[in-house]
């Protein structure tokens, strides 16, 4: 440096120093300018980065919002599905219309994304449910519906462009949905929701969820209506059944009284008849046998006829007496163990003259011995009655088959003939008193119609079963059972 100053000394040191300073300042300015340029470039670069970050921030926020809205939409849909599910679960068993509508509470309305909900009776516009609507707002709705509610009959939900919504909006009710709650009989109520909780306008999903709820409520109301009408029918039916049962019980009692009176009457009449009949019988027999002297031929023949008819009358009176005894429970069973096969053989022996008289073929299928519990005298009468009938109603050369088979605990006796047989209708009545089945010979064959009635009563007194199978022109089979005595 000293060398430089020495060299420039002739020019004057101060001037030299001045120039050097200028030079250094210029160089500094150039350097600073370069730095400024660099920093400006850096700043611009940073600004570009920040702007870029800002742009990225925009992208992040926008795409994030889109995702979150989408998630919100899905959640909202899920919530509505949950709402429908819980509403169904809580209301499916409700069978009262008012109770059903009470399920529409604040929670349900809010789950539909609305703040306010109202259900009005369609006919009277009476308030059934109100969530959040002010009295003045309800007045606006009622005034509007008074003249325009018929529009609800046309569709499931009032169209969004409808005049109704414009009128409600003018009355301060924005974002409103109205739908009828319909049954097969017509509109039961009107459901209104208003004032969205979060969004600015009603979305399709919100409208659909509301519609589903309305349709579901309509279906529930229809079910309740059907149940109520079914209940009325059932109630009416029950009342009628009760009335008829009472009538039947009354009739049965009357029949029982009449039947008892009849039995009492038959019993007393039979008793009263038997004594004089016995006397008549005794005298008619003695007279017919000419014990009191010879009688003219004509008189004797007539007396024999009288004797025969007195016998028949005695039979009828005895049978009637037995029936009335059984009915009144006065007949005492003398149950003992006896061989049924032996009894059948005895009865066949007793009736063999009639069998032979009609040239009937007899077939017996009996066990060697089969002891049963029975009142021997009464079962003997049963066998006589049935086999006698078989003989009477089987034409000559016909066949009578008597069988007795041992079952698990019981012996079943059957008497089959190849007689005229009976219609199904007659078979059903054959055990009734004084009933006689129709067949070509019934007018010729004499009978009272009391025999089988007595037979049935005797078997039933033994607590056993008796039944008949018959076919016209093929024959008839009577069956009865008795308990085996092992």
């Amino acid at each position, binding site marked *: 440096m000293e060398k430089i100053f020495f060299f420039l000394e002739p020019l004057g040191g101060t001037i030299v120093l001045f120039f050097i300073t200028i030079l250094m300042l210029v160089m500094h300015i150039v350097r600073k300018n370069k730095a400024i340029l660099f920093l400006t470039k850096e700043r611009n670069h940073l600004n570009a980065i920040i702007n870029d970050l800002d742009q990225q*921030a925009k992208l992040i*926020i926008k795409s994030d*919002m*889109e995702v979150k809205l989408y998630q919100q939409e899905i959640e909202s849909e899920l919530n509505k599905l949950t709402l429908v599910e819980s509403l169904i679960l809580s209301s499916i068993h409700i069978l009262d219309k008012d109770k059903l509508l009470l399920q529409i509470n604040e929670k349900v309305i809010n789950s539909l994304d609305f703040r306010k909900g109202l259900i009005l009776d369609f006919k009277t516009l009476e308030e059934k449910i109100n969530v959040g609507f002010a009295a003045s707002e309800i007045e606006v709705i009622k005034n509007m519906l008074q003249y325009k509610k018929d529009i609800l009959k046309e569709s499931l939900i009032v169209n969004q462009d409808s005049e109704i919504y414009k009128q409600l909006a003018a009355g301060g009710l924005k974002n409103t949905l109205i739908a009828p709650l319909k049954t097969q009989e017509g509109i039961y109520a009107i459901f209104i929701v208003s004032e969205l909780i979060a*969004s600015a306008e009603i979305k399709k999903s919100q409208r659909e969820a509301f519609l589903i709820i309305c349709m579901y409520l309509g279906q529930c109301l229809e079910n309740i209506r059907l149940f109520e009408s079914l209940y009325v029918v059932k109630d009416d039916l029950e009342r009628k059944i009760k009335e008829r049962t009472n009538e039947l019980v009354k009739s049965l009692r009357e029949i029982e009284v009449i039947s008892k009176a009849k039995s009492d009457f038959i019993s007393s009449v039979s008793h009263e008849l038997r004594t004089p009949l016995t006397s008549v019988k005794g005298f008619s027999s003695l007279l017919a046998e000419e014990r009191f002297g010879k009688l003219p031929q004509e008189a004797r023949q007539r007396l024999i006829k009288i004797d025969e008819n007195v016998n028949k009358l005695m039979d009828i009176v005895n049978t009637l007496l037995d029936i009335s005894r059984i009915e009144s429970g006065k007949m005492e069973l003398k149950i003992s163990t006896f061989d049924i096969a032996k009894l059948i053989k005895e009865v066949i022996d007793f009736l063999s003259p009639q069998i032979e008289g009609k040239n009937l073929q007899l077939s017996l299928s009996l066990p060697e011995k089969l002891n049963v519990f029975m009142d021997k005298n009464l079962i003997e009468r049963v066998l006589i009655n049935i086999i006698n009938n078989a003989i009477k109603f089987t034409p000559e050369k016909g066949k009578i088959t008597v069988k007795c088979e041992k079952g698990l605990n019981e012996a079943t006796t059957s008497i089959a003939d190849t007689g005229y047989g009976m219609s199904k209708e007659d078979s059903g009545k054959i055990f009734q008193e004084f009933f006689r089945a129709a067949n070509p010979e019934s007018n010729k064959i004499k009978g009272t119609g009391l025999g089988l009635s007595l037979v049935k009563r005797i078997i039933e007194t033994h607590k056993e079963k008796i039944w008949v199978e018959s076919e016209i022109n093929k024959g008839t089979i009577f069956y009865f059972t008795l308990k085996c005595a092992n």
Partner: protein
Amino acid sequence: MEKDDFAIAFSKRKSEEAAKEVSLKIKSSFSKSIGFLFVFFTPHYNPSNILATLNLTLKPEKILGMQSPFLVFEDTLIQEGIVVCCMSGQDVSFEESFMEENPSKEIESFLRLAFRKIRKKNFSLLSFLGPGINPVPYLSGLRLFLGEIFTLAGGGFTKKYSSNTWQIVNNDIIEGAVNIIVKGLDTTSLSLGGYLPLGKPFVITKAAPARNLVIEINNEPAINIYRKYLEEKFEQFQDNKLFSLYPLGIKNGEKFDVIRVLDSLADGSLACVGNLKEKDTGHIMFLDTGLLQNQIESQLSPLVAKNQGLVIIVGSLLQKEIIKDNSYTVVKLIKKSLGKNFSVIGMYCDYSMRSSRETNSIGIDSGNTLLTFWQ
């Protein structure tokens, strides 16, 4: 605080049965006399029944209860139930004060009365405010009377989550402000958010803090900050009222206080929950669940290695609203990170309040989860 100095219990039974069950659980696990009892309960329960049952069965010297829509017990987020924590009064003292719902002008006299005795002494303060109390003038009052030397934690509500938001203070059931002054315990607090600041920072150029309003941001109507980022989607954003998805983050030291935007007004102002003033800078915030989980693990693990005690969580209803079902995972992760040495109870609020030693200030935050460690 040693493990045997306190006990916690939870019941999700219906009505009075819940209070009976927690009482029995406490009785069987805690043999000391109860100096102080916390009870957090969801709106499903009647506070009178809870109070009567707890007084009858546990006979605590002091009792404090708060109603909240969601509670925390250990690793579970609870939608219906009662959580109880009781402490022995040895070496620790609790002083409670409360103010029923009142206009803000009475806050000053209430605070003067409440903190007259303890002014300038070292203590921790736990505060819970009902929906009728504006937290901004309340915290201003606290600063005025107590200075910046105390530790504050707490929370509050901006709206009712059932017909009432009840608080229990000894034998009183109120809706207002409740303070518990705790002496003899070391309390620290920590905020966990998982928020990312997005875009260029903005400056609040006009605000009305007393009314919780941000009027202008960057000399434009405040709503324009959203219009700028959402562009063609802004209308959809505003129609669906999605402000809660992207809260404002106001710079507080190295951190951000998350401010919930409730709605926009006709003039473009934003109605917020939080402490705002002009010249504050901030960002639009974006909650990243993954980041939140990383924060929980990274910030809690070093704290728990050698310590033990009780953690009271003031959860954020805003955070829960944004991350939805992930809230359950977050609660589980907090408990997992804290391990067995710490018992966890808590409640969810619209905002939390916390004093910061770094910035020497008290912040209102509506997006972060506040964890208060009682050791």
